[in-house]
């Protein structure tokens, strides 16, 4: 078990800087998820912690010890790869045991540890199979097993679920969470899927273009995004952004208002703070998503209860929300203090 500290981490490939100074403090046993769109540098960050990429500047500490120059094998970490990276010619048992064999762990100990991991992951019947004889979910478990048997101080996950189908992804998500709780190992998990991030993380790091925009507990980040990027990235359907110029009678300094779809409600046209026409409505049963084209602005999505009447296309309506539900952002995308 260990704490992990990233201090002003920067990474350049040639002359291009892709990570512009990231600081993260991870407590012992904490589950941190780094989330962001592809190309934001999240995987590079993880690979620097693993020791698979050199660190251009800054410092990574695991358990308080600087590891910038330490080989991956000596960092006391284990990693689960996106494509699992199972050794195709080795049995499930050998895949899990390989790291221990290299370390020179006694044979009986290896067998005990692999058996224990196989028990947890329900891989017992498959230990002698080759990876190609397994289903996607089983391969995923073997990759997890390979990480578990090493009893590392830190687990690193690089989009481990992105190769699975939707149903399996939900199931494995729950299993990973349960496992991490049970083992209490500090974990750093990278994903582009904000639902995965919300459900797994103790705290999440939202990355955008090589910068950590916000670090915080999922619901805090959801409720209080620090930037327009975070506000738009976390939450589905995404937060609506309304330019105050569209709101008649706005007296304060102009800014961008962010309002979650669930905080908007439909009213008659004159009652609304803004107005427009319905482009289409998606009744999903429990809720209905109403997409709106505002009079001279962007489209807006309203999430209303499934029991309420579904407006017809082209219908002109107004939209209202409570002022305490609106978030204010500067034109540059930074959060402004609440009024």
């Amino acid at each position, binding site marked *: 078990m260990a704490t992990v500290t990233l201090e002003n981490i920067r990474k350049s490939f040639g002359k291009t800087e892709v990570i512009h100074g990231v600081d993260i403090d991870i407590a012992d046993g904490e589950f941190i998820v780094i989330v962001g769109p592809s190309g934001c540098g999240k995987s590079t960050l993880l690979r620097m912690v*693993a*020791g*698979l990429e050199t660190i251009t500047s800054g410092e990574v500490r695991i358990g308080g010890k600087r590891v910038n120059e330490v*080989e*991956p*094998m000596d960092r006391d*970490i*284990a*990693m689960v*790869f*996106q*494509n*699992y*990276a*199972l*050794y*195709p*010619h*080795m049995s499930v048992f050998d895949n899990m045991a*390989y*790291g221990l064999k*290299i*370390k020179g762990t006694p044979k009986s100990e290896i067998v005990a540890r692999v058996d224990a991991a196989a028990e947890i992951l329900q891989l017992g019947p498959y230990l002698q199979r080759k990876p190609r004889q397994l289903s996607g979910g089983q391969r995923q478990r073997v990759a997890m097993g*390979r990480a578990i048997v*090493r009893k590392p101080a830190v687990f690193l996950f690089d989009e481990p679920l992105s190769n699975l189908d939707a149903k399996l992804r939900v199931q494995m998500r729950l299993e990973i969470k349960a496992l991490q709780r049970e083992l209490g190992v500090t974990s750093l998990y990278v994903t582009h899927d904000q639902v995965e991030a919300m459900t797994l993380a103790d705290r999440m790091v939202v990355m955008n273009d090589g910068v950590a925009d916000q670090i915080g507990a999922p619901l805090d980040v959801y409720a209080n995004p620090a930037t327009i990027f975070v506000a738009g990235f976390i939450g589905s359907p995404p937060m609506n952004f309304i330019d105050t110029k569209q709101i008649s009678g706005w007296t304060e300094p102009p800014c961008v208002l962010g309002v979650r779809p669930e905080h908007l409600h439909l009213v008659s046209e004159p009652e609304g703070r803004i107005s427009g026409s319905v482009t289409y409505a998606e009744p999903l049963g429990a809720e209905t998503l109403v997409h709106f084209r505002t009079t001279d602005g962007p489209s807006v999505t309203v999430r209303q209860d499934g029991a309420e009447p579904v407006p017809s296309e082209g219908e002109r309506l107004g939209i209202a929300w409570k002022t305490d539900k609106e978030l204010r952002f500067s034109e540059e995308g930074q959060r402004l203090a609440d009024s």
Partner: protein
Amino acid sequence: MADRGGMVESRGFGYWLTHLGLIVGVLFIFFPIWLAFVASTVEQQQIVHPPMPLLPGDKLIDNYARALSSGVNAPVGRMLLNSAIMALGIALGKIAISLISAFAIVYFRFPGRKVFFWLIFLTLMLPVEVRIVPTYEVAASFGLLNSYGGLIFPLIASATATFLFRQFFMTVPDELAEAARVDGARPMRFFLDILLPMSRTNIAALFVILFIYGWNQYLWPLLITTDPEMNTIVMGIKQMFPSGDDTADWPVIMAASILAMLPPIAVVIGMQQFFIRGLVDSEK
């Protein structure tokens, strides 16, 4: 070859015509070898008074025993051994040095790597026949005439295999090497534990191709071996023909020819799947 049928498949008359055409083709391919086999089982007298019989005679054991033990200049047994050493030396030697150098250029960054890669590329172009005279001089100056080293080294001096292994290594997912690093494998350990076992099929395919390449060499052994004891079987057969007007010892020569064909044919048939894959992969 799953179901290749369907409406395009011809039946009836055309179907039998197809088989007939193929059988004629097979017979055409077989005939010279059948004739050689027949000749290796009859007496010299039956051959020198044509036409020779088209069915095997009863001298098979005599002729082969004579060929293997004494031959004409050197025992065929001895020449087969030379060929085997040469072919195995070329196949295994080339595979070994190519594997490690391909590993180095794919998985390391070291000074001169680019230059090395281009040198490899250059060697793809030139068969040994082109540089034969100076190569002979080099081999002679190293005292390699009439030696196994002389038979083997000049023929592994090209980088075709390195190129192929490089191609294969490039298709191995990066994550495997990363996983191995996280698992604590040092470079050579990764090479031996992961990369080598994964290359099994490619190695086998290349072995078949290189074995045949080595076994069937003609010009180079002809130059480098003057001592009949060091002749390889493929070049040795020609040496069994008498100069001048003497009559060739056809049964023994044909027995030697059959013996010269057997090992490479056995390798091709026995490792057919690897061979076809290797050929189509490496050349296509």
